[in-house]
């Protein structure tokens, strides 16, 4: 047996800074029952007091109640263990109550799971321990919260300050949490953790994830639809994006043939069989109409617009002189005289004649392109001095007339109608016709291009067969102008007759295949009536232009009728037919002089004096 051992580890604690409790650890008891006593002494006093309460705080403890507790006072505490052998004093301990404050854990810890728009969070609230007087500020507590998932071991501690509630976010969906709270005075010890509060967080799907799922599904759906649509319209899409390059296509040419490399076949295919047209089907090519050009003041035939003719023309007195050479109103001479003042007379006569002619002119169809041609020609009439007038005349049917018009003849200046017919009187360019009618002027290389022409005779008046297509033929100088005219066969007779009847006409009988226009002179009847009738009826319509630009003139039935009426004429006709006025009407292009050439020889035979006199041609007596 021995005296008891020294009590050790005296620690005191105060929960609310009003009372405190000390515990000690007893030493060995020495084999004997040992009693423990705690004595304390306050600072500044030597009085020793014993612990008033050994029981409240349990074994080996001493509880100091409020009455005996003073703050800001040092307690010197000593525990004495006493047994029968002796007593043992423990080491004294100085204790100041304010420094040993350790509150009780917070009470009434409440944890709420708040479902806030699919984002739940915990709301923890508690109360301070009952004994701690925080209301008066005697004790100031700060709190701490900790939580963990029930399956884990690690706590997450969160400081809550002096607040008595706390919110916890970012919870795991469907997790179970344990929440604990503890507190600590401003200068003291942490309390124990409150009893754990278990709470379960409900399952929730983050809205973000569900939205993404929706988006993905929608996008996949749209992708499928777009793929399907592209698949259905694959070709059109491909066509749109990659348009096919058009391959070369030439009519009549076979691409494969080209690829094959056989030159003969290629070339043969290049050559279009029906080009240039070789058929003699003239009718197919009647696209142009001859326009017979009347010199200067002469109007030209118009289309079946008789009005023009009727209006414009009156029988005129032919001013052709009796000169045989000129009796036929050689256009050539006319041309020469053009520059002179005689012309005017001639023109006048021409005008008159033209008017008369108009009536008797063979009826030709006139195309509007005559006008065009005429206008072209007009434009190209720089040389002729007095062309102006003539130029003007061109557009108008009888436009030339006004300029010259001295005669009372009504100059049916009907521009309107005149336009239809280009009286390219100024254009003695009737290159084509002149070539054969008049002297075969070598300069007159240009064949006449006659869209339609009229064979008309006029002593004084030369009928210029004005090719409509002379547009691009530059007007030649006066000298060059060849007025082609067909002299009336029976010129001599006509001379006289001309005085009466100003115009003599040659009727186009037909156009042979050799591009020969067979003219059928219309025999003038002594009777005016006959002539008149002839005049009125002697129109030949150009039927077609053959491939060599030959004119095919239609014969009027009426003409024949007329013929019948005039026996004399008939006679002439018969005679005429025999010989026929041959002329090759070859509307030529600028360069083609073939027609002319062909014609020339013919003319040469007949033309002796350099001008073609149908009278001579036909062997008629010339005057």
């Amino acid at each position, binding site marked *: 047996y021995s005296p008891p051992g020294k009590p050790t580890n005296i620690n005191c604690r105060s929960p609310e*800074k*009003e009372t405190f409790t000390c515990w000690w650890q007893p030493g060995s008891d020495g084999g004997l029952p040992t009693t423990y006593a705690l004595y304390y002494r306050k600072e500044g006093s030597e009085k020793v007091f014993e612990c008033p309460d050994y029981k409240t705080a349990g074994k080996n403890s001493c509880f100091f109640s409020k009455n005996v507790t*003073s703050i*800001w006072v040092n307690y010197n505490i000593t525990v004495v263990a006493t047994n029968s052998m002796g007593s043992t004093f423990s080491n*004294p301990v100085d204790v100041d109550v304010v420094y040993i404050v350790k509150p009780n854990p917070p009470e009434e810890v409440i944890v709420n799971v708040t479902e806030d728009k699919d984002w739940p969070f915990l709301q923890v609230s508690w109360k301070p321990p009952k004994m701690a007087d925080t209301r008066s500020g005697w004790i*100031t507590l700060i709190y701490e919260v900790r939580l963990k998932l029930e399956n884990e071991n690690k706590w997450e501690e969160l400081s809550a300050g002096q607040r008595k509630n706390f919110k916890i976010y970012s919870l795991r969906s469907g997790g179970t949490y344990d929440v604990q709270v503890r507190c600590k005075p401003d*200068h003291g010890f942490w309390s124990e953790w409150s009893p754990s509060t278990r709470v379960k967080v409900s399952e929730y799907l983050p809205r973000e994830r569900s939205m993404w799922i929706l988006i993905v599904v929608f996008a996949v759906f749209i992708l499928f639809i777009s793929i399907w649509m592209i698949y259905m319209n694959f070709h059109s899409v491909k066509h749109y994006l990659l348009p096919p390059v058009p391959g070369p296509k030439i009519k009549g040419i076979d691409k494969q043939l080209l690829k094959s490399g056989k030159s003969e076949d290629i070339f043969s295919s290049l050559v279009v069989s029906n080009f240039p047209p070789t058929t003699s089907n003239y009718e197919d090519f009647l696209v142009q109409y001859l326009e017979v050009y009347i010199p200067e003041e002469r109007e030209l035939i118009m289309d079946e617009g008789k009005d023009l003719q009727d209006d414009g023309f009156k029988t005129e007195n032919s001013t052709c002189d009796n000169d045989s050479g000129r009796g036929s109103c050689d256009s050539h001479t006319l041309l020469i005289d053009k520059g002179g003042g005689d012309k005017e007379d001639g023109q006048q006569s021409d005008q008159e004649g033209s008017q008369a002619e108009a009536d008797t002119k063979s009826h030709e169809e006139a195309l509007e392109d005559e006008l065009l041609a005429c206008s072209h020609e007009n434009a190209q009439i720089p040389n002729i001095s007095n062309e102006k007038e003539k130029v003007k005349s061109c557009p108008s049917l009888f436009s030339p007339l006004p300029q010259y018009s001295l005669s009372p003849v009504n100059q049916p200046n009907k521009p309107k109608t005149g336009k239809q017919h280009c009286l390219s009187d100024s254009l003695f360019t009737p290159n084509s016709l002149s070539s054969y009618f008049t002297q075969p002027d070598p300069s007159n290389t240009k064949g006449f291009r006659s869209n339609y022409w009229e064979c008309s005779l006029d002593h004084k008046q030369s009928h210029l067969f004005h090719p409509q297509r002379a547009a691009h033929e530059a007007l030649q100088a006066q000298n060059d102008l060849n007025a082609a005219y067909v002299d009336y066969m029976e010129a001599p007779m006509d001379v006289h007759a001309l005085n009466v009847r100003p115009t003599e006409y040659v009727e186009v009988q037909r156009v042979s295949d050799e591009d020969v226009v067979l003219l059928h002179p219309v025999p003038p009847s002594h009777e005016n009536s006959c002539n008149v009738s002839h005049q009125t009826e002697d129109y030949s319509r150009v039927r077609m232009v053959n491939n060599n630009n030959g004119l095919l003139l239609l014969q009027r039935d009426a003409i024949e009728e007329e013929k019948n009426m005039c026996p004399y004429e008939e006679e002439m006709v018969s005679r005429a037919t025999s010989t026929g006025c041959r002329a090759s009407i070859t509307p030529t292009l600028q360069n083609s002089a073939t027609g002319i050439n062909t014609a020339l020889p013919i003319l040469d035979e007949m033309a002796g004096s350099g001008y073609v006199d149908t009278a001579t041609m036909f062997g008629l007596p010339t005057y």
Partner: protein
Amino acid sequence: MQQKSEKKATGPRRRRRRNRLRTCRTDERTMAQGGISGGKLFITAVYLVAMCRAVPVNDLLDRASQRSDKMHSLSTLLTQDMDSHFPPYGRMQMPRPADCHTSGLLTPNDKEQALQVSESDLMSLARSLLRGWVDPLAVLSTNAITLPHPAKSSISSKIQELQEHSKSLADGLDILSSKMGPAAQAISILPYTGGTDLGQDRVTILNKFNFLLSCLRRDSHKIDSFLKVLRCRAAKLQPELC
């Protein structure tokens, strides 16, 4: 007691209006001397200027209590630093804390007594204690540099910090007390008679140093407690704090 306190509560309010302007200036001074960083100073100044006429007392008390709390924490750390290398048995030979130079000041010894003290008295007590430690802190500061202790640098820095806090708190309490009436402004003088020299030998010096630190710890705790009680009494509108 409650009536008395209520009476006293109304009094300071009237006086508060008169001293508003002075309060503003002293507030700014306090904040300036508090050693707050530049940014904080600016914000505080702006806040003061904006709220100059309506600085709430409880807010001021809150700041004061926070500063006092900091002071006490520092003093606690100081004692711990001292004890790390100073054997405890040496302390038994030290003069008891009742020998602190501030023991002459009567302070409440328990809760009931403390809660019965008026605000003005509490403020006066706090201010007196604070004033009483200006000199000892200076002595401690000078002696800490040459303190024969391994942790003297830490001790020295803490003591310096204590000094700064003490000064700013004193200024703040001056402003507060001016709002609370003349009773709050009465200060008990607690002279320090220990002298600048703590001793000649190492043990003496350390003992004395330690003793002073313990006294300081208690007194800082008193100040902190008083201010916190005052804070809770003034924060009627913020019951959650108390």
